[in-house]
């Protein structure tokens, strides 16, 4: 091989090598730029969080010294705003896999409390002793958390800690040596120690266990229930699994495949009730109307012994109709007891039912006697006079403050917009106002 050819090859290779180095360097630069961007986002979220805790601490301390309601209300509104910002900061940190719940919960409790106080008329209802006591404890707690966070922040700044590294160690569960994570765990523990507010706004309703009537079904019984229910042939293979201790009620989950569909059903262990099911298959062109589907759904519910139900909502989504039914007793609509039915509009088959809310809420209800003291006309007097009232009926709804209440459900319109207003049937309190929309423009 003549020497000059060899030289040309050398030169070409050299150019290639230099090119590769330059390319690699540029790639590296770009990657770094992106990493820095992501890192900066994390840093901002963290430093913001620290700052907000500081602010929160200061606001809570000052509210304790305030006497004039005209000062307390806006201060409480401020606290509410800061907690919601702090929550947003927490959710931007790579901590989802780290137990940071207590902190989030505490922020939430402070927020709820501050909101409730800020909207109430403090001239009539000043902060009571219990609330002041809670605020004092809260002041100590937030002070502690503030200094813990400042400590972590100091560490982050002096050691040049990168949240990207923390993200990696959280994701790989290798967090033993990480000082920052340890610091955050201290914050979390502090937050967990405080429960002064949870006593104020107790939520007993959620914790109540549901107990269903009926005998206990075992796995074989359940298979029989499902086979009968869906008229499956005996060869169809059923996969049955039980629920764990996190479930509200013990349920068996059954899934199966037939020639035409994949089915999934939930059956209660007590009583063998089918709580919900979904049959999944390809749905052809619609030949049935939404109204046809409604008739199918009504017949089915009657067959299933849901006698006292009325349809309150129906919607057509391309090839399926979805219907919402609620329990109606003595002309009162029980909104917590709802059943949804899905009907395929190609052949009118019911492809899904969920009666979970109906069965569980029906069972949970203690108070069963609801009597209105206001008449319909009196209730309508409580409504904004711009609303053009269209229909009125009695309904039981779930409220955060007082559980289930009886209310007049008033549907009305203002300038073509439909509103639903619930007026408490006993004291005329405007429980809830909703704007009703049903469709959205296609963009």
């Amino acid at each position, binding site marked *: 091989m003549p020497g000059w050819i060899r030289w040309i090859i050398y030169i070409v290779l050299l150019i290639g090598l230099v090119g590769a180095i330059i390319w690699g360097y540029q790639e590296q630069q770009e990657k770094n730029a992106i990493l820095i961007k992501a890192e900066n986002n994390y840093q901002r979220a963290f430093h913001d969080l620290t700052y907000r805790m500081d602010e929160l601490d200061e606001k809570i301390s000052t509210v304790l010294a305030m006497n004039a309601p005209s000062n307390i209300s806006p201060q409480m509104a401020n606290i509410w705003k800061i907690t919601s910002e702090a*929550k*947003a900061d927490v*959710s*931007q940190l*790579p*901590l*989802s*896999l*780290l*137990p940071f*719940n207590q902190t*989030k*919960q505490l922020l*939430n409790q402070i927020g709820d409390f501050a909101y409730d106080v800020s909207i109430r008329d403090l001239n009539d209802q000043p902060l009571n002793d219990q609330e002041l006591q809670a605020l004092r404890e809260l002041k100590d707690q937030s002070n502690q958390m503030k200094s813990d966070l400042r400590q972590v922040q100091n560490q982050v700044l002096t050691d040049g800690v990168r949240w990207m590294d923390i*993200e990696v160690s*959280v*994701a*790989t*569960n290798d967090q033993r040596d990480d000082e920052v994570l340890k610091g955050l765990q201290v914050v979390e523990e502090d937050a967990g120690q405080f429960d002064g507010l949870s006593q104020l706004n107790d939520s007993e309703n959620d914790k109540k266990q549901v107990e269903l009537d009926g005998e206990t079904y075992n796995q074989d019984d359940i298979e029989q229930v499902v086979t009968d229910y869906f008229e499956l042939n005996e060869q169809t293979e059923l996969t049955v*699994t*039980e*629920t*764990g201790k*996190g*479930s*509200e009620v013990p*349920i068996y*989950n059954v*899934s199966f495949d037939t020639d035409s569909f*994949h089915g*999934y059903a939930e059956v209660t262990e007590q009583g063998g009730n089918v709580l*919900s099911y*979904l049959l*999944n298959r390809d749905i052809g062109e619609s030949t049935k*109307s*939404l*109204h*046809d589907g409604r008739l199918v759904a009504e017949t089915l519910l009657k067959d299933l012994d849901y006698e006292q139900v009325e349809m309150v*909502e*129906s*919607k*057509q989504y391309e090839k399926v*109709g*979805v219907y*919402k039914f609620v329990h109606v007793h003595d002309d009162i609509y029980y909104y917590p007891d709802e059943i*949804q039915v*899905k009907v395929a509009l190609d052949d009118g088959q019911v492809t*899904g039912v*969920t009666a979970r*809310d109906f069965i569980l809420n029906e069972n949970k209800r203690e108070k069963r006697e609801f009597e209105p003291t206001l008449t319909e006309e009196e209730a309508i007097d409580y409504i904004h006079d711009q609303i053009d009232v*269209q229909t009125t009926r009695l309904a039981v709804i779930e409220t955060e403050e007082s559980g289930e209440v009886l209310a007049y459900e008033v549907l009305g*319109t203002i300038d*073509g917009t439909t509103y639903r207003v619930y007026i408490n049937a006993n004291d005329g309190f405007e429980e809830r106002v909703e704007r009703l*929309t*049903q*469709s*959205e*423009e*296609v*963009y």
Partner: protein
Amino acid sequence: MMKQLLGIIIICLVILGTNMTVSGFSDQVIQKGATGDDVIELQARLQYNGYYEGQIDGVFGWGTYWSVRNFQEAFGLESVDGLVGDKTKQKLVNATEYDERYIKQQINNNRDVNYEGGKQPDQQTNEPTQESQESQNNQDAATNEPQAVNVPSGFSQNDINLMARAVYAEGRGEPYNGQVAIAAVIINRLDHPDFPDSISGIIYEPLAFEAVADGQINMQPNAEAREAVMDATNGWDPSGGAIYYFNPETATSDWIWSRPQIKRIGKHIFMK
């Protein structure tokens, strides 16, 4: 004289011709929540005699519902129930006119349709024939795309789209109920104090979903994932009220095992 007569006959024929398209209603009873051509006709007819003031969008929403009820009441129908059955349709057809071609042209050209009685025929005659020919072609080309669709309350189409992406990225290959359960977890988080209160906030929370972290979220979801999201938004919750789920084969966090488990569907364990 003969020519005049012929002219009158032709005019009559033309009017008849437009009237021929009037009896468009199919046999179905139209109820609130319905979509499609019958609803467009219903809205157009109600607008024609002044009972409906909203958009002619082909979705039987609240506005249409009140219009129907008011119409039923004013025309002395026995049941004022908002259901459009034979009697209501008959009254409507007798009292109003409907020019399907004109309405659809307007809709397809994205024009606000104003179909109050009396106004519309003038407009139509003023329109040059060529243009109406053109819009006729446009209408054929735009194969009846709906103007509006029903959405589950509290969710927009784009929310549903985003959730469908998340469900597809996280749960493709899982059984159908497993996909509904993933969508249900996202929805359960909405009301939970530990999580952001928007769909996008929940999905894009750092490290919350693996498929978001590795960019799989950007894939186009399939029809099954969309359907699963629709079922979840309409109230089905196969997860049993879960707010977390994980894949036990790839999970690395100890903490996740400490949560009370609800059930396992496919590869995922769902937890409180």
